[in-house]
């Protein structure tokens, strides 16, 4: 239950961190808040030759208002939770944050770390996918952007290359009149969710509603529930359309059963949770 030996580097700039990463040729791990990586080290599930701590790089933490919002990868989850910008401009993320671990883990955990770790049950990747956000990564050949629906490859795996560093998260800002909701089911508060749902209902200039719905715990990566979105956009928000959307969402997903719940159980939870969250979100002013 103690970490194996490793070299430790705390570079002062992103280029220096990229150099360190390259020098170890894939045998180093980036350390951000450490709330997943350090337990993995303690269990010796990973034994890298080196850790490269991103916490001492100036400018890698912070929230820049705009559309999209630009959130530095090292921004602590707790700083997001306390941010008036996030409360006003990213209400879906704000609501999701209280489900991320516990306050003492959010003190250290970062947005970039959570997204790059890509736990299939984690809340922040689900928010990114539902809101159609993106990330900015930097590597030896420069920087590039990866859209959320491209980013998550499978469980604990992203399309960020081994020599790249996630530096920024870009999140489209909430729109006036938009309604947002997040809920999840876990055995105990603070545990990873068995199923989580994220709901974004936005007005459009043309009139019809724009619905974006996402779920985790029903596949290898966070899913958009596109058939359910289409039901709501075609029929508007009524008790009947919400029930139909939830039923169709549950039929469209292909969950993997595990010790926390069979595939059928996860479908059932998704249907109930989505219907409940849609009804609650639709009822907000």
């Amino acid at each position, binding site marked *: *239950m103690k970490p194996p*030996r490793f*070299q*430790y580097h705390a570079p002062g700039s992103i280029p220096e961190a990229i150099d360190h990463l390259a020098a170890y040729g894939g045998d180093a791990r980036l*350390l951000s808040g*450490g709330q997943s990586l350090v337990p993995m080290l*303690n269990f010796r599930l990973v034994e890298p*030759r080196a850790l490269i701590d991103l916490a001492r790089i100036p400018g890698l933490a912070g929230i820049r208002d705009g559309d999209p919002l630009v959130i530095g990868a090292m921004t602590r989850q*707790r700083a997001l939770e306390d941010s008036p910008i996030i409360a006003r401009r990213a209400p879906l993320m704000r609501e999701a944050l209280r489900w991320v671990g516990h306050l003492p883990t959010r003190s250290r955990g970062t947005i970039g770390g959570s997204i790059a770790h890509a736990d299939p049950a984690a809340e922040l990747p689900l928010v990114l996918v539902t809101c159609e956000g993106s990330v900015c990564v930097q590597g030896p050949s420069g920087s590039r952007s990866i859209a959320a629906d491209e980013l998550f490859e499978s469980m604990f795996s992203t399309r960020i290359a081994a020599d790249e560093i996630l530096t920024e998260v870009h999140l489209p800002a909430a729109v006036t009149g938009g309604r947002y909701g997040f809920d999840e089911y876990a055995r105990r508060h603070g545990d990873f969710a068995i199923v989580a749902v994220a709901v974004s209902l936005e007005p459009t200039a043309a009139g019809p509603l724009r619905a974006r719905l996402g779920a985790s715990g029903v596949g290898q990566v966070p899913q958009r529930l596109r058939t359910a979105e289409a039901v709501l956009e075609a029929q508007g928000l009524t008790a009947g359309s919400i029930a139909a959307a939830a039923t169709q969402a549950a039929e469209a997903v292909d969950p993997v059963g595990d010790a926390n719940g069979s595939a059928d159980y996860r479908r059932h939870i998704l249907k109930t949770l989505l219907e409940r969250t849609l009804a609650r979100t639709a009822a907000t002013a």
Partner: protein
Amino acid sequence: MSTPLPAPADAPIDDLPVTLVVNGKTFHGRCEPRRLLVDFLREDLGLTGTHAGCEHGICGACTVLIDGQASRTCTLLAVQASGARIVTVEGLAQGETLHPLQQCFHEHHALQCGFCTPGMLLTAIDFLHGHPNPDETEVREAMSAAVCRCTGYAGIVNAVMAAARLGPMPLPAGALPD
């Protein structure tokens, strides 16, 4: 703190300097990079009030305040924390006078074996500092960050509710820079 590039595979792993201000007192030490903060506090600094329980960030027994925020010390390397201000359970009582939250724990039978208590106290202080008038549901959600195997939590919840009724909860001395 960086070392030259590239580090050869057989490069020795040097101890690194760690400076912490713990309960208002500055400590300078050196340790292996892999040293967890909980072990640095307990073994290098002799502050054994912080308890190592699960050692993977679940049970909360090792919770302290880092720069005024409750944080696990089993999921944090000592070198990561270097430069931080830390409050441990040893920093709560003033001599023989218990901290008001400790007094509430005493009066409401919020501990039996006491192993989880240091982490419970520091988790609750951070929560109450940010939530001056919590209801019981909020207290239960906040305290779910720490695990107790003796009490069944009723005493802990009662103690935290009682402490909330005493008024705003300041952060302990030394939690933040002066």
